[in-house]
């Protein structure tokens, strides 16, 4: 019988903001543990939070083998990797002071707005070890802010947000970004016309909406069973030469997410191409899907800490190209989608979404806030002939800030 132990600890300190003031301070410290026992082709798992002992969990996991949950894959072994990205971040006390200072400057510089929501500093430690010489240890500490803004004269529940996620927070950069967004917000402009525009998708907030079709249709099980829009198209050139879709667990790009999946798979360079230069390379898979359908394992096993790892959509992103934002927009006035939610693809790949906050943008400057618009296209247009690329630089000269540019149909709501 083989034994595997998973331990995950998340510590957070948050400042909760209401009516532009720090309303409350929250501390969270939660540890989740599980033991997996493998006996032949079966797995038994037991897990718990807080003050539970590994010995008790091991006993329960052993008992749970009676449930006959099949697990036919070879467990990960002979790998020792430790990655610690938790350096160079302030301690809790400094964070509380910094949070208050940031908020006070944000409020002072933007008196026409009310701010709310939360800023958080989090530390995560995740270990996966087994008696087959597997020892994977990940530690990270990063900050994530999502500060909602609302113009004082506005009757909306909120008008937008400014956000940050990373390990190299700098107050001045955050305030500069906020200033650009809020200044742009205050300057209302008209949509110049209805029709085709160069549309920049702000990836920090809108990327997953646009990649939703790949999250769904590139599920290895659905793909292999013939239920995907892309089934039977492996190896085909379906999209633009510049379109490369990757699944990433690279600790340099991804925060508070271990570099290994729940089965202990570690990818080369911590990432895998699903679509490369427009060619469909692979759906995403875990060990079981990979073995059953003879497809490469892309390390996409996920699930709750006390469940059998299973195939769940991974963190997908689009590889940046060589062109800057200015080059992608080519001097034209286009549209920057800053907040878009609620849209979707139809089963045949047609896409539409309302855009709650969009700016008129020329590749260098946010010119002004557009009225609410709707954008539409089709998966084979937006990522093929109409696809222009992801910028090599950043919208706000900060962490993230990538923009994916494509031509789309734009109409007023």
């Amino acid at each position: 019988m083989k034994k595997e132990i998973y331990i995950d600890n998340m510590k957070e300190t948050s400042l909760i903001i209401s009516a532009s003031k720090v309303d409350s301070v929250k501390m969270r410290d939660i540890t989740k543990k599980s033991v997996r026992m493998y006996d032949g082709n079966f797995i038994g798992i037991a897990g718990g939070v807080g003050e539970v002992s590994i010995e008790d969990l091991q006993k329960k996991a052993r008992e749970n083998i009676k449930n006959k949950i099949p697990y036919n894959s070879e467990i990960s072994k002979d790998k020792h990797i430790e990655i610690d990205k938790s350096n160079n971040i302030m301690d809790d006390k400094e964070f509380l002071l910094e949070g208050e200072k940031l908020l006070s400057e944000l409020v002072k510089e933007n008196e026409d707005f009310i701010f709310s929501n939360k800023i958080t500093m989090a530390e995560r430690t995740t270990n996966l070890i087994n008696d087959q010489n597997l020892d994977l240890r990940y530690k990270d500490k990063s900050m994530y802010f999502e500060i909602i803004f609302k113009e004082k004269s506005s009757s909306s529940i909120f008008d937008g947000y400014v956000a940050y996620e990373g390990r190299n927070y700098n107050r001045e950069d955050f305030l500069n970004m906020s200033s650009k967004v809020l200044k742009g917000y205050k300057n209302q402009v008209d949509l110049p016309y209805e029709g085709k525009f160069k549309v920049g998708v702000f990836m920090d907030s809108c990327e997953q909406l646009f990649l939703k079709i790949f999250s769904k249709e590139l599920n290895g099980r659905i793909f292999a069973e013939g239920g995907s829009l892309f089934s039977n198209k492996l190896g085909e050139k379906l999209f633009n030469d510049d379109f490369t879709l990757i699944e990433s667990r690279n600790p340099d790009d991804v925060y508070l997410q271990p570099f290994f999946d729940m089965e202990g798979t570690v990818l080369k360079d911590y990432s895998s191409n699903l679509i490369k230069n427009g060619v469909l390379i692979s759906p995403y898979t875990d060990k079981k899907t990979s073995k059953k359908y003879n497809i490469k394992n892309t390390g996409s096993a996920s699930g709750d800490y006390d469940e059998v790892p299973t195939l769940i959509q991974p963190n997908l992103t689009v590889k940046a190209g060589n062109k800057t934002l200015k080059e992608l927009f080519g001097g034209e006035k286009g549209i920057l989608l800053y907040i878009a939610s609620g849209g979707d693809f139809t089963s045949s790949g047609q896409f539409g979404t309302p855009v709650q906050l969009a700016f008129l943008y020329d590749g260098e400057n946010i010119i002004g806030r557009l009225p609410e618009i709707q954008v539409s296209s089709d998966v084979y247009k937006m990522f093929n002939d109409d696809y222009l690329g992801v910028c090599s630089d950043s919208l706000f000269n900060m962490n993230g800030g990538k923009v994916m540019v494509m031509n789309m149909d734009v109409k007023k709501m």
Partner: protein
Amino acid sequence: MKSVNFNENFYTDIRYETITERKIIYLNDELQGMKEREERGAFVRVFDGNRWYYSSTTKLSQLQEEVDNLYFMAEECKEINENENIKLLELNSGEYLKYNDALSKISMEEKNELLKEYMEVLSQAKYLKTYKAQYVDKAIVKKIISSKGTDVIFDVENCGVQISLTFSYEGNTFSETFQKGRDNFQSLKDNIDDLKDFLIKCEEFLVNSVDITAGKYTVILSPLAAGIFAHESFGHKSEADFMVGDETMIKEWSIGKEVGAPILSIVDTGQIAGSGFVPFDDEGTKAKENYLIKDGNLAGRLHSSKTACSLKEGLTGNARAMNFEYEPMVRMTNTYILPGKNTLDELISQVEDGFLVDTVKHGSGMSTFTIAPSICYRIKGGKIVEPAKISVISGSVFETLKNIDGLSKNYELLSFVTGGCGKMEQWPLPVGFGGPYVRVQNMNIQ
């Protein structure tokens, strides 16, 4: 449970939670997982009259240290009991155990058999390519104690079946999800035939659905779609935390203001069994029936003690947290549109060119609401003519509420066992929603 000493110069409350969850999962015909889990944790709140201090922990043997640590961060306030927020908090006590651990008395074998009965129906589908079927149940026992004297214990239970289905026919694919959520196991056995009807509907959509031309149309929303609409379009706007310290919103949202068609009434209440059952909220406030809109006019809003105090209104029982890891904030419970006088056939017969939205993938709501439909039907000349593919329905909340011109007399309040409402980082929070069939003029369809 070790007792905790409270410092009289602070307001303190502790919410203990025991969450028991059981899950059985099949991928196609193969068992993928079977688990029983119990989690125990606590959420501590300390208020010093100026700021709240929270701690979420699973170290239940060290709760006194957690409380003392928050006292150390806060500032002592001798008049804390005179604070308006603290005065407003309800003082409830007693044992309100409705379910008494009923779900744990049913064996995993019996639950597995039920799921298999549902799965057997799937063999009738002609174009089903793959599925994931799961049985889920959850029992939560909460105990809330406070320095004011609250000492209440209550429970909620929910169970259900969810099946994600993927179909394919001649190159067309379609994915849908069947779900039944109930508050007792026996009633899940009564719904197996619903899956048969659902499969027929899905396959008809797969084979016959057509693309549509975007534009403005009359739309009839099913009880599911109407519930999502009520929740997203107006429910979120009724959450009073968006109004705190905001003079514009307070003026804009004055009680009595006309906000919808005169036939429209929307209610939120945690009193009804199901996924939105919240007998006490996470501050210990007893559930109430709250009209958000009555006969087209703004009738109320949803509160925590903090927002109710700030806006000088009464408590509503809507301070909810996803679990012991999170702080309570203003959230919905069961939100639904009250029924009208028409039959569904009457509503359809008066539509010259429009759509019936039957099932929905998701919805969202800011000033613009969105609904991403799954199964829809085209209506022409007062009759349903064919299934239709729509990517998103959207519109201004207030314009849409005023464009409602018909409500069916039958209505449904739906319960769910997976998914839920998302607000800030707290997702998914179990809620219930529903309503009658609702006809709306001039909706924007993409």
